[in-house]
């Protein structure tokens, strides 16, 4: 078990290093931030001076090594736009993104879990058809369009909810629901097919044959085993949403990490782009690492295989 944990840890660190490296070099292609930071018409000397000040005049490989040494210590430099520590600028946006992501995931798991179970247990009934039609539509609807439509309906026409912004619970409802629709559609479809597969297993027939109560079979045999792929999917979705749902945050003017990074890309604010994407990668890798450990708890077969 310890060997497995250490190997996964090593792979995780390698992945983060890879992300940091890729982001470093891609941001260099974005262009010259010095020319963008100075007012139009600045002299070539001024631009050169600023480039020297930002350390952009050094050889690329040297910049990379210096960047790595500092990044390991959590220092991503000073944001060109905000004039403050880049990682701090990013971390300030984390609560907004986390609130939205976790609310959406929780909402999506509840809706998707119930819908998926109903669809699997009521196979061939009208209710299955209705649930699956909604799930298909939910998966085919781009979140940014759904967001706009919800704003149009609940914000503009009915005037019940704010059309965007951040602060109160009423601001959270529309963006969280928008993302939850997509999450629950994916969960419902996955849970249904996973349950249908398990319902045909021999051990389910055995459990029924030995006279266990219906809901005992459902909870301890069907649901527990069907949950394994759902855990994987939830981890992937959580990682994605914590990475800032760029478009949803844009549609609802939600001050999260995704929107911050887009603005940083537009402004060629290298330190913020690098700090932001590194943080997201670390969160993503960490979640996957934890999920791998969780499998062992959920599935005894995986536990003993190690």
């Amino acid at each position, binding site marked *: 078990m310890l060997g497995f944990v250490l190997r996964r840890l090593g*792979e995780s660190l*390698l*992945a*983060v290093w*890879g*992300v940091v490296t*890729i*982001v470093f070099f*891609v*941001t260099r*292609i*974005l262009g010259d931030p010095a020319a963008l930071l100075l007012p139009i018409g600045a002299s070539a000397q001024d631009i050169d001076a600023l480039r020297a000040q930002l350390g952009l005049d050094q050889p690329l490989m040297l910049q990379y090594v210096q960047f790595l040494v500092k990044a390991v210590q959590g220092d991503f430099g000073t944001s060109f736009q905000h004039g403050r520590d880049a990682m701090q600028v990013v971390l300030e946006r984390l609560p907004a993104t986390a609130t939205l992501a976790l609310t959406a995931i929780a909402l999506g798991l509840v809706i998707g879990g119930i819908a998926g179970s109903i669809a699997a247990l009521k196979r061939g009934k009208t209710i299955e058809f209705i649930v699956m039609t909604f799930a*298909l*539509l939910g*998966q*085919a*609807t*781009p979140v*940014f*369009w759904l967001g*706009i*439509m919800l*704003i*149009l309906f609940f914000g*503009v026409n009915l005037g019940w909810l704010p059309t965007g912004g951040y602060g109160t619970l009423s601001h959270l409802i529309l963006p969280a629901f928008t993302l939850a629709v997509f999450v629950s559609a994916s969960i419902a479809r996955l849970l249904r097919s996973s349950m249908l*597969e398990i319902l045909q297993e021999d051990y389910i027939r055995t459990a029924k044959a030995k006279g266990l109560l219906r809901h005992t079979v459902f909870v301890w045999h069907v649901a527990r085993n069907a949950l394994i792929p759902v855990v994987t999917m939830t981890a992937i979705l959580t*990682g*994605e949403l914590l*990475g*800032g749902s*760029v*478009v949803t945050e*844009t*549609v609802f003017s939600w001050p999260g990490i*995704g929107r911050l*990074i*887009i603005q940083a*890309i*537009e402004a060629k604010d290298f330190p913020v*782009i690098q700090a932001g*994407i590194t943080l*997201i*990668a670390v969160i*993503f*890798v960490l979640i996957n690492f934890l999920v791998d450990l969780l499998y062992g708890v959920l599935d005894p077969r995986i536990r003993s295989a190690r």
Partner: protein
Amino acid sequence: MKNLIKDLMRSKAGLIGAILLLLIVFVAVFAPFLDLPDPTRGDLRARLAGPTWDGLFSPGAHPLGTDEVGRDILSRMIHGSRVTLLVATTAVVLGGIVGTALGIWAGYKGGLVDRVLMRLVDIQLAIPLMLLALLVVAALGPSLRNVVLVLALTSWIRYARIIRAQVLSLREREFVQSAHAIGASTMRIMFFHILPNVLTPALVVGTLELARIIIMDSALSFLGLGVQPPTPSWGRMLADGRVYISSAWWTVTFPGLAIVLTVLSVNLFGDWLRDYFDPKTRNKK
């Protein structure tokens, strides 16, 4: 092939998806012959005109309304579908070729090649695809070619992982072993023995990827990083129409419906295709 069509006819969902998809592709391909108003030229006297069915067949009718500079929404939607379908299919094919090739190579060779490829996949999975796409498009500049490249870049890993897993089991099969025994070269085995056996899973992944890429392409244009104006695109229409949301609902409603309908039909068709080729579900029929 006969069985394939027979099964499609029996599957209601798959059939609906296939018919819708054919219709969408047909309209997109023959758009230039449809006598639509110019999608890029506006009529300022008719800006933000609501949808109307009066005089539907007379010239100058706008059945789905017009946008903020008086361009016909229906015509822009249809011309937008050409761009979206072109970008999405090219990206899916490109990502599919690269991903399948790398998946076969890693799966068959194993060892270092395999380890390096899997770590690359890990790295790319740790960056949210949307952010990766935004960053790369911003770096290379938003052109048709770059958008296709970026979308293909987000796609290759899905093929590579699934194909690799298939090849790992194919590698141990007798026909591959005997080809190796009679002295066939690695290239020959990979190309003539492995490749034909992974084309089906690649096709299934491709169909499902097409749906994801259509949405992503629209999201990129929505954020202003897709194909640039004056070429119409669904995402850009949504972004432009958003400003007029309180007075002109049609500017944001119809382009979005076009995306939903296209993605839905691709998904319906893709689900059927996957079930058809999946031995587990096929045997139940």
